[in-house]
């Protein structure tokens, strides 16, 4: 199940769906739809949540892992995608040997775990226990958990833009992970919020150390994004990192 690196180039934006007419279809809407449809989906969610925590993976790494799946796997099902991404990640990190799981489904397994990872799993189990409660102390929710789960990091750099500025979304550089969708690329919008600076997902996905970046909400009119096809009186607001933007 190893990822073919060639796929990254031939299918660069399998996941980048905004405005892609070939995916347009009625939404299979069910107001009562639960998050899971089968037990295996729950297990995949639980296993991924545990492993990502214990192995200290960033959410960006896992997103990038799913984005690199071959099209058939990416479009199989949501949790099928998670399963494939998890297997690839575990193989890449040497926790699973290629084909090991296939052997297990018929016979027994062979490889042993890594001691460091085993210790981390035990620590994770202990840390999670007091956190998995319906409610937690207010100070923890307001000050501790946002630091643990968010990527906001202060920067000393001056912000290039301010609320009210017109900005254009620059061409994408590179073909790696990014949170810059294709449908806003090259489009002009207006800064409506200046958020706290945050670590750049493009860098975090591949362990590249970079200073954090200013982050802005940009408002685009429907007409700017879609031209004459746009519906009247519609707009899209999206958060974009400073390096995605230039003065517009």
């Amino acid at each position, binding site marked *: 199940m190893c990822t073919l690196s060639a796929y990254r180039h031939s299918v660069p934006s399998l*996941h*980048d*769906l*905004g*405005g892609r*007419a070939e995916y*347009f*279809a*009625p*939404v*299979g*809407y*069910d*107001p009562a*739809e639960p*998050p899971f449809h089968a037990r*295996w989906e729950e*297990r995949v969610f*639980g296993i991924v*949540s*545990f492993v990502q925590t214990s192995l200290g993976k960033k959410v960006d790494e896992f997103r990038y892992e799913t984005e690199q799946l071959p099209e058939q796997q990416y479009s199989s099902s*949501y949790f099928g995608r998670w*399963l494939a991404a998890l297997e690839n990640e575990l193989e890449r990190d040497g*926790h*699973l040997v290629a084909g090991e*799981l296939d052997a*297990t*489904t018929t016979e027994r*397994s062979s490889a042993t*775990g890594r001691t460091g*990872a*085993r210790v981390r799993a*035990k620590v994770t*189990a202990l840390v999670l226990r007091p*956190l*998995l409660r*319906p*409610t937690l102390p*207010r100070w*923890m*929710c307001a000050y501790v958990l946002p630091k*643990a*789960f968010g*990527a*906001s990091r202060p920067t000393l750099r001056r912000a290039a833009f301010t609320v009210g500025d017109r900005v254009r979304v620059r061409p994408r550089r590179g073909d790696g992970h990014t*949170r810059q*969708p294709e449908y806003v690329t090259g489009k002009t919008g207006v800064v409506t919020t200046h*958020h706290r600076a945050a670590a750049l*997902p493009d860098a975090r996905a591949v362990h590249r150390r970079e200073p954090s970046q200013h982050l802005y909400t940009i408002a685009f009119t429907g007409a700017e*994004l879609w031209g004459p096809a746009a*519906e*009247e*009186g*519609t*707009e*899209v*607001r999206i*958060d*974009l*990192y400073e390096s995605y933007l230039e003065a517009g």
Partner: protein
Amino acid sequence: MSAEHSGIAARVEALEGLLAQKGLIDVESVDRLIDHFTSDVGPLNGAKVIARAWVDAAFKQRLLDDGTKAVAEFGFGGPEGACLVTVENTPTVHNVVVCTLCSCYPWTVLGLPPGWYKSSAYRSRLVAQPRAVLREMGLDIQPEVIVRVWDSSAEARYFVLPMRPAGTAGMGEAELASLVTRDAMIGVARVEGPVA
């Protein structure tokens, strides 16, 4: 379909067994994680927050100023909630949330997203044809009302503060909360008033 399902179910079971054997997962913690995100965390959290915002103007202001700190007053916090932003529906603006790149969603107030939210149809179309998509989902937005789509792509996780329905003047927080649905907080539905 069912053969494929049982195939993948067997594969997941094998993977779980293998990871447990290698000491890479703690099965009890996996059980707890699933329980937590299906039972403890869900749209009832968000409904309580919305109901309070409807009856308490000072809280509503705190919610609009800093969603994460405001919901912390209820003891709600965790992953996909580090930077919670509340967007308010008004008679002139209707807000609706999507994630075109993956499945970003405000877990701390809404729990885990339903399948349709993660579907390629919703993710591709909502930014381009929001009125048509909402209409098909049963929500007709008047032409004079601006439709504002929030594409969650970075740190912020957006959720909608719906308009309080008519006919609820005498209601308390708990009763109001019972009217608020997950889909109203995503922005694909209205909060309906009490059935007469």
